[in-house]
């Protein structure tokens, strides 16, 4: 974990409202599923840093995580991301990271199934490149197809579902998942809350282990403000629940450990 001032290498529009941001960083010891907190403005409004998953390590050879920088992929949804989108190469941003636990490596022999929706694809790029497997990509329309650009991984297969049917199967990505749930499978999911909830329940019902990467509003990113709490269920038979921090205990959780009712 470091707090550094990083130079912007590039900040290119991929499609209307979608950007990829290259940030210089000498020694990013980043793992698939890690995120960073970015200071998008020097001013006091917006005040808090914004969390973004690491898309990939720049200049990394093969699957090694050493490199010269990191690339983020973000969508403009509010003030912070809008300010970010106006930044130009050469400007400097504060990065705090890498943060979080990251995805646990799949046990040998298990078949990896990744489920994503929208920007949920970000943290799975690194995972896919290491594990390969099946990527179930959910989008609203085929306009979001570019999010798949450059995805690769040992024997990686991609299946797509769009809500409007303009690419792949018409409907939700969870429909694709249905067909993949079988013994010997481990699921990794990132995307909107509703999707994660559904994925988690489906996996639970099928007895398949599933890791979800959650998002919560964050202030510190390092487990001290206690702001990003989600309730977790203890599997000790007792009604013993307590709060886990998405930033430091997560953002990746075993789907069964989350009290989805409260989210």
């Amino acid at each position, binding site marked *: *974990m470091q707090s550094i001032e990083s130079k912007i290498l590039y900040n290119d529009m991929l499609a209307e409202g979608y950007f990829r941001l290259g940030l210089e960083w000498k020694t990013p010891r980043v793992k698939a599923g890690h995120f960073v907190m970015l200071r998008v403005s020097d001013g006091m409004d917006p*005040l808090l840093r914004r969390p973004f998953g690491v898309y990939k390590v720049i200049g990394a050879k093969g699957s090694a995580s050493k490199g010269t920088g990191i690339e983020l992929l973000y969508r403009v949804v509010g003030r912070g991301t809008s300010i970010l989108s106006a930044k130009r190469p050469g400007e400097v941003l504060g990065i705090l990271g890498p943060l979080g636990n990251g995805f646990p490596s799949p046990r040998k022999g298990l078949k990896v199934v990744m489920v994503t929706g929208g920007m949920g694809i970000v943290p799975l790029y690194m995972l896919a490149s290491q594990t390969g497997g099946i990527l179930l990509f959910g989008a609203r329309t085929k306009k979001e197809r570019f999010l798949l650009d450059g995805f690769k991984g040992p024997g990686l297969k991609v299946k797509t579902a769009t809500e409007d049917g303009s690419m792949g199967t018409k409907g939700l990505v969870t429909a694709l998942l249905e067909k993949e749930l079988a013994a010997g499978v481990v699921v990794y999911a990132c995307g909107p809350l509703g999707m994660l909830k559904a994925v988690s329940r489906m996996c639970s019902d099928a007895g398949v282990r599933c890791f979800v990467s959650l998002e919560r509003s964050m202030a510190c*990113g390092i487990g001290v403000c206690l702001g990003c709490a989600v309730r977790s269920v203890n599997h000790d038979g007792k009604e013993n629940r307590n*709060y886990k921090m998405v930033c430091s205990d997560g953002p990746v959780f075993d789907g069964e450990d989350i009290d989805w009712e*409260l989210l």
Partner: protein
Amino acid sequence: MGTPLKKKLPKKPLEVTIAGIKFRNPVMTASGTFGYGAEFAPFTDIEKLGAIVVKGLSLYPRQGNPGPRIVETPCGMLNAIGLQNVGVDDFIEKKLPLLKGVRTHVIANIFGETIEDYMEVARKLDGVKGVSALEINISCPNVKKGGIVFGTDPQEAFRVVSAIRKSTSMPLITKLSPNVADIRVMVKAAEDAGTDAISLINTLTGMVIDVEKRRPVLATATGGLSGPAIRPVAVRMVWQAAQVAKVPIIGMGGIMNANDALEFLIAGASAVQVGTASFIDPDAAVKVAVGLEEYSKKHSVSMKDLTGSLKLA
């Protein structure tokens, strides 16, 4: 324009003494914004701080409130953590040892829902090695008294501080709530009860509504407002408190840099605490200390002499 208050600077111009404790500089971290201290070691040199004030401790561990617990506001944030903490026993056993050998003061922030709770926590911390003082958070509802807040009623404040005074020989800092009409009354109550210092301000109560869902953003409806938005209110209250206080004051509320800290010192504080700023820059508190040192040199003034040096027209 910045005439030096004194020509000759003492040897340790940053050092301040509060409640008999010597702090290497007047910069502390605010409770609830710096964890139990060790979490910040990767990012900042915690030995450069005057003191670390840890997350509020209760008699038993507390789970805190359901989420969402935080929301950003213009130049600030609301929090409704619900005082989640490991409890005083676990603090002493597991968290405090992580700071062993770290050469800075640790101040334990404590709270309770009844006066007995407060007393018991204070007793447990009494004489614990590595804890230099207790900071009493009185911004909590007294469950026995039907939920009225200790910190907005001078009589209740007096009762809880007096009771703690009797439960411990440790230096006591009473942390005041800004949600009152006249802060001076609260200062007097805490002093009469035997506090060794006053700290202020805790958060202002606020609310943000999601207009699409027509629900409060926070699960608890209201939360505590912190950050630069509240600084003018905090500086004003510290200044008012300083008019009547006989004990030293520790000022806080929206301090982002040394300039902000100086406002509090000049208004009458002997030390400051940096809160929300540590979320935005984990090195913020140390940077404040560095900035104070620069100001001290430039103006040839010690922190002690700066305290309350405000000139009125």
